[in-house]
């Protein structure tokens, strides 16, 4: 049960960081017809650091099962986040 909680907490943190990273990705922003920079300065390195932190913390805590499950889960979650189809603003605003 403890491992499951560690895993869920780690996944939540990493998924949030991955979501933020896709929001500030410049190539993606162009496809979405968004400005490359948002109103607040983006911090991709910090987001990568936070997103990957469970990869250091979980093994350090001896939670190998939660670590491996997290590692598998973020690759799936990251893919699903990135796979999201861009909205065509010109047609939606028409």
């Amino acid at each position, binding site marked *: 049960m403890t491992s499951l909680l560690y895993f869920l907490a780690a996944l939540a943190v990493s998924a949030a960081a991955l979501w933020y*990273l896709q929001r500030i*990705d410049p*190539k993606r922003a162009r496809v979405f017809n968004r400005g490359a920079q948002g109103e607040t300065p983006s911090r991709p390195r910090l987001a990568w650091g936070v997103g990957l932190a469970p990869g250091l913390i979980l093994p350090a805590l001896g939670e190998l099962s939660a670590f491996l499950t997290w590692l*598998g889960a973020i690759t*799936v979650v990251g893919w699903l986040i*990135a796979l999201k189809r*861009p909205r*065509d603003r010109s047609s939606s605003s028409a």
Partner: protein
Amino acid sequence: MSLANKAQSKRLLAVHGWSAVALGLFLYVVVLTGSVAVLAHEIGQWSGGGKGHANVLDRPIHDRLTELAEDVDPAYREELSVYQNAAGSVFAFFHGHEKKEGAGLQDKGVRFVLDPETLAVVQRDEGFRSDMPIDRQSALDRFIVGLHVRLHAPNPWGLFATGVLGFVMLAAAISGIILHKHLLKDLFVAPRISSLLLNRRDRHILAGSWSLPFSFILAFTGAFFSFAGSVGLPIVAMSAFGGDQEKMVEFVLGTPETADERPSPVANLDAILSESRARVGSSPTFMTVSHWGRADAKLTVFHGPAEGDIEGSNHVFNAATGAYEGGKPLLGAKPSLGNAVFAWVGPLHFGNFAGLMSKAIWVALGLATCYVTLTGLQLWTQRRNESATWRALSRAIPIVGYGAPIGLLGASVGFFASFRGADPTDWTAAGFLIGSALSIVAGLAVKDRETLSRLYQGATGFGLLALPFLRTLLSGGPGWTELLNTDGALIMAMDLLMVFAGLAAVSMASGVRLEKLAAGRGSKAVVQPAE
């Protein structure tokens, strides 16, 4: 930053593409069945009615095994294996080791199949292990696992084939990394909708990039399992032990202690298993007793991983006195780096170390690899669409892509339809072949791609939706009222999984296709450069 110059990239692209084109559809079938086989235990419970979901080694079993030992030839008391299969059937296999013509040293003895609730003998088989029939309760999950492990080809050729496919997957992953110039930068690139080809390329690269670490892991561990026994073991035996595999096994597992053939009653196995459970912190999943009824009898208990761990562990007890003798590495007589690595191979490949959570993720990882394989093949053939040969391969992609899951649905229908009467083992295989054949006929008969895709998706969806009903109507499996009154949560969850997956497939069949999206919106879409 590219890891290769232009000429090298071109050669690598050829390796990447041709290796996948040559064997990609077989690789897809192996990976798809592997993704399903991650849930083999759950499929066994679901298809077999879930009668034996309680672990038999967590219950009193000593008296029953003592009775059964009296019922077998003393020569077969050399070793006893006790285990439970995915469907819950309990096996007690008393055996010795004899040479079988053309197959070397094999296990030979008496195998009892026991009812998991009453431990009554429901089947008794005698002979070589390899000749014994498959438990009918477990025919469906065994068929799926057999298709994944060796494509149901005879040994060792099936293992060679799947091992080669593992190496093809490794080659595709490595060449994919080198080829992809902006792997990290493009992790979040949105699939372009300006053209179908670019959209497919972006989707292929996205899925391939994200699933890369586990493509490596699954391919390497899969190839290891295919080749370790069929090639690795004989090569090591040949080079280091002059071809003597028995001598090598003795070296790896440790030299047996001096024999003590004096008769001695077996210590209380229930008490030993209870002690082992307390020591390890997880339930035993498998046990063997060597030299049953002798003073040198040993009990080896295998445990699945404890909470938070990845690998299982072996523990040895003196079966005459009940004394604990210590842990035993899975490989070799003493703890070693080789054993540590070996202990991780299974969990990494099967994803079974954290219950249903890790299994669900491993299924998703496998399906992502299927997606990468099929989109890669689509890209390759679409770029060469002017050639009749490539157009023919292009037609084969949806036939196999949808035909494999439809074949698995056919296998399930064959299993349920024959469960109460005929031989489910044969009918499960027949159902798979019928489902696959119907898919091929549809693929050849329906020329329009979109209509064909919708037909396949609809057939898959309605097939999945029908399975929970066929489970109860045809095979007499427990209905939801009965499941609610017993501990039937797993079977209900599997039923719901079928229903949700079926609804998703039906929804896809009735939804707007990407081709229409691209055709209708392409002029308005934002176009990005290819790299």
